[in-house]
């Protein structure tokens, strides 16, 4: 490896290029100063992999996690590109073709109680079902992180009020609280998402708060305060990067739960309204035919189950990938 002159903007070799074993050549009988100079010349340092690169590398090594992620990506793209995947209209059925079993000619997964193509309804239903998983989790993560990080960093009266409010919400069972909020807001897909968002804010705020408290006692926070940095800057540059992984891992596990709660609300008639397909609502409407066409009834439930399991598996893999010693 060529000796590289030290400059203000050194060209660093990457980890792969850097030859860690390269011997430092010095003449025999070199003085300590000469040895030191030679070491200095040869010491290039190596590019460290940024945290997220390393996380990605470790995640890819986890087969179950990758499989779950691929499944979720396929599901998401099928929901997004639904019109290109299925020709049939999910809202209009043929009255004479009701409750056809799966693998019927022309209807791969059969038809529902109104003669609507089951495959189309499942694919289109994924749109709303996945949205009810992602959207409330994303909003709750954002709001909960803001609340938790602020409360954990500032503490004091504002922090106490925020966290005790969270505790009050947390005292209710999640599904019960969602039903109560959903019922008071009125039925509808949007309202059920709002309900799930509110249900998820307290647990995320708690995780964010406890993670922030652990960070808040570290000396690097004092050092950043000593630099004259304002609160928002400290939260953004010092606190958030150190609490983000804990929050992300927890939130990724909530997506599946959000879908379950939303499906439950739909099942109770508080979620999406007919005839819009949604897995929870489909499960409800097919409930009456469970004895005459059990295979059909199982299908939306199976979708909910598989998606939820996939989210949990991916979340576990993410947690394992992020679980590295950094301090």
């Amino acid at each position: 490896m060529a000796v590289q002159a030290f400059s203000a903007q050194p060209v660093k070799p990457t980890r792969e290029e850097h030859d860690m074993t390269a011997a430092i050549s010095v003449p025999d009988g070199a003085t300590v100063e000469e040895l030191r100079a030679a070491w200095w010349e040869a010491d290039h340092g190596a590019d460290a992999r940024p945290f997220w690169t390393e996380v990605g590398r470790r995640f890819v090594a986890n087969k179950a996690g990758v499989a779950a992620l691929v499944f979720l990506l396929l599901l998401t793209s099928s929901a997004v590109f639904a019109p290109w995947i299925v020709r049939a209209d999910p809202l209009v059925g043929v009255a004479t073709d009701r409750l056809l079993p799966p693998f019927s000619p022309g209807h791969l997964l059969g038809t529902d109680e109104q003669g609507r193509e089951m495959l189309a309804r499942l694919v289109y239903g994924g749109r709303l079902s996945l949205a009810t998983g992602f959207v409330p989790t994303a909003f709750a993560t954002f709001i909960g992180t803001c609340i938790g990080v602020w409360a954990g960093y500032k503490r004091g009266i504002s922090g106490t009020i925020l966290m005790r409010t969270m505790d009050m919400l947390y005292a209710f069972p999640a599904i019960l609280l969602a039903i109560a909020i959903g019922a008071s807001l009125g039925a509808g897909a949007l309202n059920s998402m709002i309900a799930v968002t509110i249900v998820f804010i307290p647990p995320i705020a708690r995780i964010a708060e406890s993670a922030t408290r652990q960070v808040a006692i570290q000396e690097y926070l004092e050092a950043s305060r000593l630099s004259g940095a304002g609160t928002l800057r400290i939260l953004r540059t010092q606190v958030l990067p150190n609490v983000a992984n804990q929050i992300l891992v927890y939130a990724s596990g909530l997506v599946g739960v959000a879908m379950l709660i939303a499906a439950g609300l739909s099942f109770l008639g508080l979620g999406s309204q007919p005839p819009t397909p949604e897995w929870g609502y489909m499960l409800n409407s097919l409930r009456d035919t469970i004895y005459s066409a059990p295979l059909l009834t199982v299908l939306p439930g199976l979708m909910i189950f598989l998606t939820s399991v996939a989210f949990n598996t991916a979340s576990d893999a993410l947690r394992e990938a992020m679980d590295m010693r950094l301090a």
Partner: protein
Amino acid sequence: MNARRPVLLDLRDLSKSFTARVGLRSAKVSAVDGVSLALRQGGTLGVVGESGCGKSTLARLVVGLIAPDAGEVVFDGTRMPAGQKRPRRVVRDMQMVFQDPHSALNPRATIGEAVGFPLRVQGTPRREVSERVDEVLTQVGLHGNYRSYYPHQLSGGQRQRVNIARALALRPKLVVLDESVSALDKSIQAQILDLLRTLQDTYDLTYLFISHDLNVVEYMSDEVAVMYLGHVVETCSAHDLYRRPLHPYTKVLLASIPKIDPRQRSTERNLASGEIPSPIDPPSGCRFRTRCPFATDHCSAVRPEPVEVEPGHWVACHLYPSPGTVVEPPRRLDATY
């Protein structure tokens, strides 16, 4: 040696107590009580004492991480506002190197980001930040290429070098070193201490050097202040302190240094009996009186004020009365040790 240079840092009667919960009641913990110290530009003031004597609180009071209950910090002729943000100039002029090299660096920030952070906060343009980071890393003995490393890839000594680089990035006048070498191995300690001395010359730095390690303080300091339970009990030049300690506590402290020569080992085992008392509800008057072999009733009634016993040698002890009082200091003190 720095007698002619102006006073950079002047602490006047600084006090700080914290509220702690004892069972259901809350109690006042007096961490620093009526501390007055002065530090000349270019000099090093060592602060020694047992753990829990208020050294770290003093450091944080000086740099403004916590606000004093009473007293004031005068830096470079300017009185620091208590409990408010300090002016930018002062932020740049006063920095601190922390004790724990592991927790003092953000694990998610590269070395370059960590050292450049104070510069960025103070609004230095990106290009200059990059140049300054390389320059200061080189000065602390780290290759500029280390800027892309993360803290967990460095050893304890390297991290402490990074901490020093971060403190120096803004070219401060005063650097508070709070137990900055205590967490390091002896061999690394020596390297870092030498580095600190070199940097003191390069930057004309003034150090407030806080440590519980008496040998290290002797090596680094021009003057030394001895703290006991939030009080400063003795202040003098480093040379005098180690050869002619006057306060009974200082004598105990120095006697606790292990001697290499067995003939010099102290045969007196119990110079001061007992543990350091709790800073919750500390002893009245002289705080050392509960462990002091020479304590009298007078010691519990009146807090001793610092007295200049010899030129430049201040002691806060009733054994050394202020000039004008007739009481002789007991001779047996010197005879005992």
